[in-house]
Every structure is written in C-alpha cells, then in structure tokens.
C-alpha cells in the first residue's frame, strides 16, 4: 500500500486503509500527515459527539447501545481515548470489551488510542484522526474520553455536542464539578437510573447547572439495561446543531504552526553543547541567542 492507495482506501471506506492512516497520523512527522490530510481535507462532513465522564459510569455500555441506534441515521465511527500508564508509557485499551459484538454486527469502525501520544495537544491531534474518519464517509463520530484530566476535557472542544455521563451514588457529582466537566457539557446523562439515589443525583446536577446559568441544559436519566429514555437521548443528538467550526479551525491552525516552529528549534535545543558556561547563563539569554541564530539561517 502506498500513500495514494491509502487515500483512495479511506475515501472508499475501507477499514484497513482507515486504520493504517490513523496509525500514520498518530505518530508520523508533519510532512506525512500533511500529505494525507491535504488529499482528504474537503471530503466528508460528520457530526462529532463527545462522550465523557468519570470511570465506571458506563460510557462504553452507552456507546455500545447508542451507536447501533444512530446507525439508522448514517455511518458511525468511534474514537476512544484511554489513559496510558504514567510509568511505562504502555497502556491497556479495554473500551471495546462492551461494544465489540455490536460493532462487528453493524460494521462500525472503532479505534482506541492512548493519550500518551498527545501530551498537551490531545484535541489538535485527534483532529487529524477525526478528519480521516470524516473522509471515510462517517456521518457521526463518537469521541469517548475519561473525564478525569484537563486534556480529556480539552478534547471536547472538538466535539459539536458534548455529553457528560454520570451515575448516582458514586459521589460523581462532586468530582464532576471539581474536575470542570460541568462547564463543558451540552447534555448531562445520568446512567443507571434503576439505582438508588438517582433522583437525588439528577436533582443535584440540575441545581448545579441552574447556579451556573445553564438552565436550558438538558439532564436525562437513562437505564442501559432496558434502554429507557435512550430515545430522548438520541433525539437530542440528531437535532443538535454543529458548532464551533471557526474555533476548531483556528485551534488546529495554531497547533500546526506551533509544532512546525517547535520542530525547527528543537533540533537546535537538542544539539546544543551544554557546557559549564552555557549552564551558568540564564535560559532567557540562551533562548534569545538560539532564536536569533535560527532566524538568520531561515532568512538566508
């Protein structure tokens, strides 16, 4: 497979090509990514549905249930972001367990990715992956993250609609408020409403939202066992408008430029001789010298 074959594969919706292209943009240099993205940029147009929430609230189960329902309205792709081990850099991606059967039956493309690759720029890098998924003809792209860290929250900037999932009785409401995901939710889903305390959980979330001037933000209680209220949830997703197009575009632009600049300077930083003398100077002065040097080379 060459890059050209890969691109025609993506456009025709071939899962192997899509998967391989994602591997490439996950780690390749800016030039290779550019080659791919340039060719597919104007192809496809999907609604991006972000699903986030603390661990254990049933996000994967919800996606496993809602994805086949959505597939009546168009082609679905799923991108799930899992945390990497802070020690080894490796990761165990287990999000598929509760969905695989549905995915295979409905031929839904799903990709797991670990957040290690994207230190500090998760949303911009997943932009590339999402572009590939869009170009493959997806109408809906579901983006799953664990809403526990800032980067997981940032990623939701890329979504057209952000659904925050919570479950009663785990103290999630408080955690959610602390971690900032109450700010970003367009819809709040309370899963496991068959459980004790669900009424109070819904009420607490409602009150918090009202205090934060989000009176209109819907809070939906659902039951993933008998699919109660899934129809309401689906309805919101279908009717929701796409948003933030400009903001996302500028965000991506910034990332490309910053990355490019960083790459140009980083070889200087990495290749510099750090002798005693250098280390005595303050880093501002050293940086200034590098930039000056660099600009001279570019000017030539």
């Amino acid at each position, binding site marked *: 497979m060459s890059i050209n074959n890969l691109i025609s594969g993506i456009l025709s919706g071939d899962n192997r090509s899509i998967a391989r292209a994602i591997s490439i943009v996950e780690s390749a240099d800016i030039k290779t990514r550019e080659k791919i993205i340039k060719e597919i940029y104007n192809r496809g147009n999907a609604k991006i549905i972000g699903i986030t929430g603390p661990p254990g609230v049933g996000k*994967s189960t919800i996606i496993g249930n809602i994805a086949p329902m959505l597939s009546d309205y168009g082609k679905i792709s799923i991108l799930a972001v899992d945390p990497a081990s802070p020690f080894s850099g490796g990761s165990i991606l287990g*999000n598929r367990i*509760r969905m695989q059967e549905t995915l295979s039956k409905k031929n839904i493309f799903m990709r797991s990715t670990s957040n290690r690759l994207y230190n500090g720029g998760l949303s911009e890098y997943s932009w590339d992956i999402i572009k590939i998924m869009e170009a493959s003809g997806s109408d809906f792209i579901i983006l799953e993250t664990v809403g526990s860290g800032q980067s997981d929250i940032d990623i939701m900037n890329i979504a057209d609609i952000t659904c925050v999932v919570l479950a009663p009785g785990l103290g999630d409401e408080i955690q959610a408020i602390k971690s900032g995901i109450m700010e970003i939710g367009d819809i709040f889903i309370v899963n496991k409403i068959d459980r004790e305390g669900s009424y109070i959980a819904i009420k607490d979330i409602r009150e918090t939202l009202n205090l934060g001037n989000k009176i209109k933000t819907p809070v939906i209680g659902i039951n993933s066992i008998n699919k109660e209220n899934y129809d309401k949830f689906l309805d919101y997703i279908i009717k929701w408008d796409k948003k933030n197009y400009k903001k996302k575009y500028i965000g991506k632009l910034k990332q490309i430029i910053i990355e490019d600049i960083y790459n140009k300077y980083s070889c200087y930083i990495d290749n510099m001789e750090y002798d005693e003398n250098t280390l005595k100077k303050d880093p501002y002065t050293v940086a200034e010298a590098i930039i000056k040097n660099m600009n001279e080379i570019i000017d030539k």
Partner: protein
Amino acid sequence: MEDYWNLKINEIKKSFKSNDKYNKWKEKTLKPWNQKTGYKDKKYKNSSDMDIKELYTEDDVPENMDKILGNPGEYPFTRGIYPNMYRGRLWTMRMFSGFGTPDDTNKRLKYLIKNGETGLSIAFDMPTLYGYDCDSKRSVGEVGKCGVNVSSLMDMERIFDGIDLSRISTSMTINAPAAILTAMYFVLAEKNNTDLKDISGTVQADILKEYIAQKEWMYPPEAHLRLIRDMLVYSIKNVPRWNYISVSGYHIREAGSSAVQELAFTLADGFYYIDLGIKAGLNIDDFAPRMSFFFNSSINFFEEIAKFRAARRIWATVLKEKYGAKNPKSMMLKFHTQTSGYTLTWQQPLNNIVRTTIEAMAAIMGGTQSLHTNSYDEAWALPTDDAVKVALRTQQILAEETGISDVIDPLGGSYYLERLTSEMEEEAYKYFAEIDKMGGVLNAIKSGYIQKEIAETSYRRQLNIENNEETIVGVNKYIDENEKPINTLKITDIAENDQLRKLKDLKSKRDNTKVNESLNKLREAMKDENINLMPYIMECVKNYATLEEISNVGREIYGEWKEPKIY
C-alpha cells in the same frame, strides 16, 4: 452493617496479647546468634501478604481461645463441624470426571465406583457450561474437550445409565445453566421412579464467583440470581437432600487470588445467597443448613489449614450473631475441597503428585467433608485413567495408612496456626467492611473491584516468580533441560461427531409442538419475577427441549452480559 464488621475487627484486635516473650527471646538469643553467624534475615510472607515470624509462642494465641475455638461439633465449629469427624465417617473421595460423550463418561463413572469412589462428580464441557448445544456455531472444536457434553435430557440419561440415583450422591459442576441441568437430574430421577426425596447431591450454581473468577455466564447477574432463588426454593421444598448451591472459592483462587481473598470473597458471596433466601421469604434455618462451600487447597500448608478453620468460625459467628440463625446446622460450614490446579506444573509433572499430597493433607487437617485430588498430568491435558488412579490412591493412603485422620483438628492449639487463623479472620472482616462500603458484593463485582483485586495479586505473584523471589521447583529452579513428554489423554473429534448425530436424531424424533409449547410457557413465566421457574424448566426438559433452546429463552428476555473493564 459496616458497624458489625468493625466490631468484629476490634474484637479480634483486642484478643491479641502483647508479644513480650517473643521480643525478649529475639533480643537475648536470636539477634546475637544472627550477628555471630552473619545471617541476614529477610521478610517472609504467605500468599495473603501476611508477615510470618520465625517463631510463635503462647503469646500469639488469642486471649479468648476457649470461646472462639469451641470443641468439635460445637459452636463456633473452628475445630470441626462433627463431634467425631473422620472416625465417624471419612471424607467423601469425590473425583471430578467427565469428558467426551455421555457414554465415555458413563464408563469412567462406573470405573470409579468399582475402584471405591463414594461420590460422583461431573465435569461438563465448555459449550454446556455456557448453555450452548453441541451443534451451535460456537461449540465447534469444543464438544467433549473439557468435560462431558450435555445438550439434552437424552445425554443425561446416557451418563447415568445403569447407575442407581438413590444410592449415590452426585455433584454437578455447572453454574450459568445450573437450573436446566438440575431440572434434568430431577426429571431423570422421576423417570426412573426414584423419589426426589431420596436423591442427594450438589449443584455448584454459584454465579457470583463466575462474574468474579471463572467468567462463565449467560445473562446479567440479576437474571441468574433469580434462577438461583428459584432452585433454592424448589429444592428446599421438594428435594430435601439436595445442596442447591456450592459457594465456591476454588475458582477465585485459581484466578490468582490469595488465600485470604478466596476466604473473604467466597464468604461474602455466601452471605449474599443467605440474603437471597431470606428475601424469597424463607426462614434462615430452613435453607441455610443445605448451603455448602467449595474451597481450594494450595501449597502453603499452614495458611490453607488456617483458612479452612477461619471460614468455619466466621460463618458460624456471622450466621448466629448477624442473621440470628438458631439451628446449629445453619451455622456449620460444610465444604468440598479440590487441590490447587494452579500449583501443578507442566515441567517435571511427577512432582505434582507430591504437591497434591501436601495440599490434600492440608484439606484433611482443615476438616473438609469431601476431597478431589488433582492428577499429575493435568497441566498437560485432562487426566488419563492411570493418573486419576494415582490421585485417588493418594487419598486412600492418607486415609488408611498415615493416621492423620485418627485425630480431630490435630494441629489445633499450635501457636502459629491459631494466630494465623485469627489473622485470616481479621483480614476477611476487613474485606467485608470494604465491600459493604461499595454497596455490597454485587456492586463490588459489577464495578470490577473484586476482579481487579485478584488480578493485582496474581500479577504481583507472577513477578515474584519471574524475579526468583518465589520458587517453583522445576520451573524457575532445579530446571531439567531434558524433559520428556508424558502420555496424555487424547480426545478426538469422534465425540463431537457422535453428539451431533445423536442430537440431530433427537430433534427429528421428539414432539416439536410440545417442545415449543413448554418453551412458550417458560417465556411467559420468566416475565413475572414472582413465579418459580423450576417446574417450567422441568417441563421443557421432559419434552427434550435442548439446553440451548431453554437458555435462549432467557437470552431473549434478559439479554446477554459483557464483563466490566478492569484495566
């Protein structure tokens, strides 16, 4: 409820005396000796991560010894549930068997009966364990491989052909489709004109440990628990000598847990089933006496014996104090033991005979009611007849040559063992408190907490082996470079083909209208939580509806189940 567990923890803590004698000896004699000889002490731990001292003294024995030990046959049964234990009746030598076709298994059972086995124990193959027939797409290549295949009542009839059900007791290792296999056994008895009151046996039916460890299920937990309730209620009323559940720690241990995790999670499951019976409106003293347990016996001799003793003490104490049971029989923890499969090594397999012997001794000294000894070749395949014979002979030698069964709880009073028993008990209570905090054992399972605890222990242990901190003879020490393969049992696809043919034949001969009628009735009954499903399942079985056909009714109504992510 948490308060009760904390109360127990404090009681145990208070019962530990100060350790003056040991400390004095350590300062005066041990330390100078170690300094003189240059011996550097390291930390010794057992599987439960407890620190093990080099010496235990009378100070280590809990203060309230008389009260918590009890005599054999007396509350809290720490030393044994019967007054005369093995003098009255030896443990039942119950060898788990089953492979290939029902006819193969029938032959094996008759062979074991001839060789002096006193209780039968049936192993089923993977398709049967998951509620699939031999002709399911998922069963290809698995029929008869890990046990016997049962796709319908016809297969059950073949397994027990020529065996009088009123004169033997049968243990069936089946969980997810337990209600169906139990129904088959009951119907078989009825067809042979054996009164249900005269049959005896045990069905494993412990679905909670499936979600924890063995991972063989069909429906979400709540659906299986309803079926267990129905079996419980039906057998208490109609089959008085039937043990409707065998709450199992065996698989929890095999999945990698420590001894204390096995103890704690198994008993926590047991308490859940007690709650289930009470919720079904039964009086605790009517059904608790028929509950039985199934533990693992692994290689750390004293740790295992302490575990068995702690299990009896905890069960008796909690049933009496927390649940208010009045009948001593409700408080007696009866258990079956199987030696550890995990400790069997593929390398130098004959060494496994020694391991199994030691594990069997721990079970006997721990007061087990029945015992399965593994065969030395089971890390390779299902055992050959010869290997099974050695395993059975191991029990017979222990019973009749060594004298260890002559005395009840022969290690009782050992400073070390009594201390270990109390520490096990304390750690188990801590787990109960933790589980209650999470909203009970079902929530702890559904959130993956228990599974993760076990996986962590299992991984830590594997790293210890990799780093040679823990020795496994023949695996990471004393390795034999010139290992020769041993003879193993080969199971051909003949079993699969034979089963397929017989099932096809059955489906063409049975009355399909009756089959559908009974399945439809079951479907309707399933929708009403308050109906007992056992009679409906028995009706389906009688009409030769297959295992999968009956299971599928539940799959339709309840849906299937996928495990929570634990990493």
